[in-house]
């Protein structure tokens, strides 16, 4: 795992190891928020930003605090606290200094804390033993991949809004089927770059 170039990880995280389409992470908000392109884009930006920062913070926390103290088993608790604290901090800063941004992102920030993709990226980066640059590339790439998936899903859902769908499939059902088709399409990328 050591010699993979960060750029390879970056593109792999967007296309072949997409957080939603191949790792099933962040599904809850993916299904709930993919109704509109604009909101999903805002959420995607917020997720990408938080992912980029928390992957680096968690990297340092894990390798410079937990490993020397032999407390690796506490990583779940520590990561989730770091993520929650970071999200809270970002929320306060945005509210104070970037008011317009706060109104477009604000409501999504608390949601991000429980987004599995954020914790998932931190855990994957530990399991795959990435170094700092690889972790950062993985974090940003995963965020962009997640954004790509949710925005395209919002676009598709907008198109099928008036289409006649079997009653039982309305809402989450059809969203999952479309996600399946999207995942199928993304499988086509799998020959390009591959990690794991």
């Amino acid at each position, binding site marked *: 795992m050591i010699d993979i170039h960060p750029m390879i990880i970056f593109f792999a995280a967007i296309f072949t190891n997409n957080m939603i389409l191949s790792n*099933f992470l962040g599904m809850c908000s993916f299904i709930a928020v993919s109704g509109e392109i604009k909101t999903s884009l805002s959420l995607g930006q917020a997720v990408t930003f938080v992912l980029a920062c928390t992957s680096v913070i968690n990297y340092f926390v894990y390798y410079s605090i937990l490993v020397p103290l032999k407390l690796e*088993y*506490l990583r779940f608790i520590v990561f989730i606290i770091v993520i*929650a604290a970071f999200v809270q901090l970002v929320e306060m800063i945005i509210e104070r200094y970037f008011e317009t941004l706060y109104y477009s992102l604000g409501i999504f920030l608390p949601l991000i804390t*429980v987004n599995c993709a954020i914790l998932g990226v931190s855990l994957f980066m530990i399991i795959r033993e990435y170094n700092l640059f690889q972790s950062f590339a993985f974090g940003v790439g995963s965020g962009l991949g997640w954004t790509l998936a949710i925005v395209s899903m919002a676009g598709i859902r907008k198109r099928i809004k008036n289409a006649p769908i079997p009653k039982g*499939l309305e809402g*989450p059902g059809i969203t999952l089927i479309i996600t*399946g088709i999207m995942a199928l399409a993304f499988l086509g990328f799998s020959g390009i770059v591959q990690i794991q």
Partner: protein
Amino acid sequence: MSEFIKVFKEGIYKDNPVFRQILGICSTLAVTNLMMNSFVMGVGLMFVTAFSSLTVSVLRLYTPKHIRMMVQTLIISAYVIALDIFLKAYWPSMSKALGPYVGLIITNCIIMGRAEAFAQKNKPLISFFDGLIMGLGYTIVLLAIAFVRELLGFGSIFGIQVLGEQWVNWTLMIMPPGAFFMLGIVIWVTHRFFDDNTDKGGAKS
């Protein structure tokens, strides 16, 4: 007693976390390519939900309202860590197969949802039972999806070959798209057959 029966009914189909409330499917899907994995995951989740509901309920009178989310998260994490260490120690191969998804139980919305919606307001014993049943409802759906995926993808059930030599593995089923299609179909079928017109619909959280 009737209280328990009501909780049982709600957990298994009326409010089933996966196909009714569309909660916690992040970690649902990733492990459903093999029945054994799904089973272990489901039992693990049952354990965590039940005991964290119990703990939250025991502590509900002593927890200040405004920090309760943090307390709940810590309680859940503690049990997940216990589960992770247990699997690592006694079943390393399974721990490896489930990978980060054991840790991701923490962010599984079901547990937090039950702690918040049920354990916060009810007595310890019934909360424990509620957690157990919610976990069971989750496990059943997990196993149903895994059954189809493993049967079609590997021709086996719980690792035992059942479809014989001439069966050609349908590789797509064990890849991610298979999981999405299967869950979509499960939701469709349950909506179609079990709907008593009290459709709450829509995804939450």
